[in-house]
């Protein structure tokens, strides 16, 4: 050890000392500030049961959710819920699964309903006690059937939906008026065929001089899947993914859907190479008249002060259908749940459902019918203009690997991006995706 003489700085002792003194002072100040604000850390009334609540909502949604949690806490002094936000998508779902497997999971969490098949059958979630839920005023009758059923797995209910958030069509009312595509009611004229949609888009393009439609998909499997699946389901097609067997798909319908998307991405109707952020910015800056997007972007438009309206994506292929998902409350598996705490979770969830008019302001369609049927919601525009989407929504095909933020969407992107960007053969692209699905289906279901 002696042989390794490590040279240590010689000069600058004074500097070093002063730096140390400086940092020490900073640390002291830090501790002081902490102690002063320490009381804010532990919240709730004395004796309030702490609830750990996980979700993946950030930005506009996160702020709204924080407000709902604060409201629920102040309404119910018996508990104090603390929200923890994790990175959206894979990191969140990976951690949720690990926490549930470990048995010391958070008390309540939000999941996408489409992810349920990857969690519930494997025992990673605990089922809801419907009687207890009814005791706190939440029953099956309070939800649209498709939304409620998306929370069921093997006959039991594992998730209680907070909302449905479909893929919708937003449009700039000023541009639409100039293009002459507004009806007498001030809303976009009826569109019932692909040609009519293209026609409307071209008219808007003539007004903006840039594009008629904004749609960002580059490097974003979720975006490609949302629009594709909307058209695919409008064509009346189905997709069945059963482990151990090959995927059952309607290839012709898929090709029709993809070729229509290719048609739209012609650099005139819409840019051929837009990503999510670019498309959003283009629509906000009136570079286009229409925008395929999720309801969650509604606050962005409101903030931007854009003259806009929104509607359910028009039925162009015969069958009314849109892609959607739901944020839903789940009970991550705990080895040893505290019954008192569990009951407080029911109070917490019922409270948030009853307050979910605030959630509707963020653009989402509340799942809780008493809210949707309330006069306040009917007055909420443009939310009320796409409320009917809740009746025709389609979740991802069920399999342990599908759902929002899953590998499924990544695989879709890997095979379909070149179809949309470079206009390669749609059939070959879709077949590549199906081959990938078949590889996954040939493996044993880990759940």
């Amino acid at each position: 050890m002696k042989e390794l003489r490590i040279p240590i700085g010689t000069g600058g002792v004074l500097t070093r000392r002063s730096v140390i003194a400086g940092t020490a002072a900073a640390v002291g100040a830090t501790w002081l500030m902490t102690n002063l604000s320490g009381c804010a850390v532990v919240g709730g009334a004395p004796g309030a049961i702490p609830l750990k609540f996980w979700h993946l909502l950030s930005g506009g949604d996160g702020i709204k959710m924080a407000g709902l949690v604060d409201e629920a806490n102040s309404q119910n002094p018996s508990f104090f819920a603390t929200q923890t936000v994790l990175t959206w998508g894979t990191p969140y779902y990976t951690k949720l699964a690990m926490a549930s497997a470990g048995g010391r999971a958070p008390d309540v969490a939000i999941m996408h309903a489409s992810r349920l098949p990857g969690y519930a059958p494997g025992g990673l979630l605990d089922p809801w006690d419907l009687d207890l839920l009814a005791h706190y005023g939440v029953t099956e009758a309070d939800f649209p059937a498709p939304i409620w059923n998306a929370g069921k797995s093997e006959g039991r209910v594992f998730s209680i939906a907070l909302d449905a958030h479909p893929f919708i069509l937003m449009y700039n009312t000023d541009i639409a008026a100039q293009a002459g595509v507004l009806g007498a009611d001030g809303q976009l004229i009826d569109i019932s065929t692909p040609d009519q949609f293209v026609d409307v888009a071209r008219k808007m393009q003539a007004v903006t001089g840039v594009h008629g439609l904004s749609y960002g998909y580059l490097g974003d499997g979720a975006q490609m899947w949302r629009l594709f699946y909307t058209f695919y389901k409008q064509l009346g097609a189905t997709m069945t993914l059963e482990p151990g067997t090959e995927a059952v798909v309607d290839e012709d319908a898929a090709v029709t859907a993809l070729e229509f998307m290719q048609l739209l991405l012609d650099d005139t109707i819409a840019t051929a190479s837009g990503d999510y952020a670019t498309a959003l910015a283009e629509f906000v800056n009136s570079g286009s008249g229409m925008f395929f997007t999720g309801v969650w972007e509604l606050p962005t438009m409101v903030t931007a002060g854009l003259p806009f309206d929104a509607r359910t994506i028009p039925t162009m292929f015969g069958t009314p259908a849109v892609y959607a998902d739901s944020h839903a409350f789940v009970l991550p598996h705990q080895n040893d749940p505290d019954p008192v705490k569990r009951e407080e979770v029911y109070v917490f969830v019922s409270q948030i459902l009853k307050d979910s008019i605030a959630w509707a302001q963020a653009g989402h369609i509340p799942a809780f019918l008493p809210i949707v049927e309330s006069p306040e919601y009917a007055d909420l525009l443009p939310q009320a203009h796409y409320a009917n989407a809740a009746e025709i929504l389609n979740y991802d095909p069920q399999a342990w690997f599908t759902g929002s933020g899953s590998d499924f969407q990544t695989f879709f992107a890997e095979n379909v991006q070149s179809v949309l960007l470079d206009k390669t053969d749609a059939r070959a692209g879709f077949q590549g995706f199906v081959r990938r699905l078949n590889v996954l289906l040939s493996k044993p279901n880990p759940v």
Partner: protein
Amino acid sequence: MTTTVQSVAAAPRQASRPARRRHRENGTGWAFIAPFGVFFLLFLIVPVVGGIWLSFTGQTLTGRGGDFIGIANYAEALADSDMWRSIGNTIWFTVLSTVPLIVIALVMAVLVGLGLPGQWLWRLSFFLPYLLASSVVSLFWIWMYNPQLGLINSFLGFFGGEPVAWLQDPDVAMIAIVVTTVWWTVGFNFLLYLAALQNIPEQQYEAAALDGAGKWRQLFSITIPQLAPTTVLLVILQVLASLKVFDQIYQMTGGGPGGATRSTVEYIFEAGFTGYRFGYSSAISYIFFALIVIVSISQFTIMNRRGARS
């Protein structure tokens, strides 16, 4: 390796061998070993053996599929293009990062070794990042690389350059990760070079000076050759460390965009925890382990041959 280990531990006198003692001390010996031994057994041997067992089963995170399935996992892994891509990414990262980590450290050490004023500042600047946790480093650099608000693109913009999507563009993401890694860990290599510089006998420089060799010449004829053992050692350490890369990649790009930066350890993590497949993930782990062992052995072989020659 040998050289440094000797320099670290070279004994002033040959240690007396315990074998000299007449009676054995089995009880005492095992009692001294016991605390370490228990942990060693429980948290190293058990997982090593357990991992081998897992790799022959279809075990999942949810507790299902614990049945023996033979070499199916290994067969699947060897045909898994994602695994090979992750190994390719890992090797690419190793190649890209090793050279700058050695060369920049050497430049830093030689310049600081000149004894210019400001010693404390130089040493602190170069070594400090090494003390940071990976999460801190990632936060710093995600911010530096921010396409709109980042300092790097602002700097480029100042000179009329186009903004670069450092972490979002598959063509540059790995380079961005390498730059961050060099910034983070070069301090360790710098430190070792600096230490090695101090050990070069002064007489060599004096003799060279007498022979009329200039300082620049001395650098190439004395300093760099004398640092060769350190360089070899650092290359070995660096390659082994780089092959195990996970933290900064997971934190900065999550393996993206489109898997362009996904390392092998990250693939192990994803296969096991995101895909729930413990058995399959264990199989990849052992394939990866085999790769590391092969790299280590070949490095030692090359080094020993070199050592024997010189």
